[in-house]
């Protein structure tokens, strides 16, 4: 009985270490292949469109409402000690440093990470990845590199758009329903904003873009067992992206604090 229990712990630990090692190798290969020819321009541009451009509506909508809600909530809090003038500053810092990157990362994980895992997973179980190999094409460079690169590049751009839309949302609520003076709200927004607030958010976004696309590719690449396996890969891609985004966000914040 006791031995069974220990054996179970051992099995789980081994499996976990195996998965970590597997993922590490996959990550190294993904990064290494970015610098190796050939580079598939056409595929890269297609991924820029599908990861970047087509995510604009979701990211924009998320940022807009987040900015609006932030303004309301922070107003409630700051009015308790007569610090209403801080609303604009806190909204813009909260958005740029934290909420725009994290929420965009999560939205893109749901939209793009899942799609990548499903597409590559289907290619795996229908032997299309094997077919790539027999046609002398490295599936890593053909499938993973364009997606990961597009993720790393487009997510910061999306977040920049999110920053702007979010601040605009806060401005709308503040001036239209909280009675702030438009010009002083704008002044408060930009007077205390520092470049590193924005930049640290963009760095986070880039890392999240890497995580989302890498998880999609990893789970898709390693899916087994037909349609059910592809479904599992999709779920795992999204869940692991979510967890990695939230965990890495903390460490990135510590790292980028000053």
């Amino acid at each position: 009985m006791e031995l069974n229990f220990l054996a179970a712990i051992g099995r789980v630990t081994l499996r976990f270490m195996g998965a970590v090692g597997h993922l590490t190798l996959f990550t190294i290969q993904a990064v290494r292949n970015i610098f190796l020819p050939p580079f598939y321009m056409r595929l890269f541009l297609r991924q820029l469109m599908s990861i970047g451009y087509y995510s604009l509506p979701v990211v924009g909508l998320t940022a807009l409402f987040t900015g609006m809600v932030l303004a309301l909530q922070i107003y409630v809090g700051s009015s308790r000690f007569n610090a209403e003038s801080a609303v604009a500053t806190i909204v813009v810092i909260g958005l740029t440093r934290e909420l725009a990157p994290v929420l965009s990362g999560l939205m893109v994980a749901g939209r793009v990470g899942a799609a990548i895992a499903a597409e590559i997973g289907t290619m795996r179980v229908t032997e299309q990845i094997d077919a790539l190999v027999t046609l002398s094409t490295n599936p890593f460079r053909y499938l993973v590199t364009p997606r990961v690169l597009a993720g790393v590049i487009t997510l910061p751009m999306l977040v920049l758009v999110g920053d702007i839309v979010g601040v605009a949302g806060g401005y709308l609520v503040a001036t239209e329903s909280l009675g702030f003076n438009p010009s002083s709200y704008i002044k408060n927004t930009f007077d205390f904003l520092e470049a590193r607030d924005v930049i640290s958010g963009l760095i986070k976004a880039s890392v999240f873009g890497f995580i989302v696309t890498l998880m999609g590719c990893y789970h898709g690449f390693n899916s087994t067992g037909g349609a059910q396996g592809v479904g599992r890969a999709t779920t795992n891609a999204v869940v692991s992206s979510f967890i990695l985004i939230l965990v890495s966000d903390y460490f990135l914040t510590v790292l980028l604090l000053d």
Partner: protein
Amino acid sequence: MTAAPKISLKNVSKSFGDKHVLNNLSLDVREGESLVVIGGSGTGKSVMLKCILGLLEPESGEIYIDGQQVLGLPRAEREKSLLKTGMLFQYAALFDSLPVWENVAFGLMQAHGMKRPEARDIAIEKLSLVGLGSEMAGKSPADLSMGMQKRVGLARAIATNPEIIFFDEPTTGLDPIMGDVIDNLIRDCTKRLGASTLTISHDMESAQKIADRIALIYKGSVVWVGQADQIEDSGNPYVEQFVKGDIEGPIELDILKP
């Protein structure tokens, strides 16, 4: 024996978990010959092809292509050795993100660096060889019937005029007339283009038509190999049972006998 064999497998074994699929399988494909491998469903024929192509790694044994041992070669060299091979997958494995003609032209464009318009012309020519008109060129593979997908896969396998071609059940799912067209095409690949081909088949009639030699696989090993015209009077009990399609004989079937 004259020249060294084009492909040579020596005592190749492969298992999945505790399931032994290939057991010390040895087989030669001679230069310029058409070898047909027959054998029951699930005896490891497709797995054998994947081992030769490097899509699966056998546990033990040796595989030579043009006299060079390919097991354990670095990835890049293995990729290079695939430049001279073509493969038709059992379930076609067409890239569903690309139109039909780009599937056929894939090897020409990616591995041989041919320009798109030129590759397209060749693709359309190869498609006509398998009985598909140029109106098919722009279609998505997902919109084709299985038999049509199979023929596109065939066109893709022969598009680069490879020296070695593998056909995994090229005529399953085709009507008898189209089956005949494909048989002739495979015959043509060896006789006119001088390729060495390894074809897997269940269809005895088609096997006898295209084969120079025939090999029978049973439980992961070759139990008989001989000239195609000797198959009727091989004196081998396995072959006799397989050719006649008898239930009685040395081949064990996992079915419940009434």
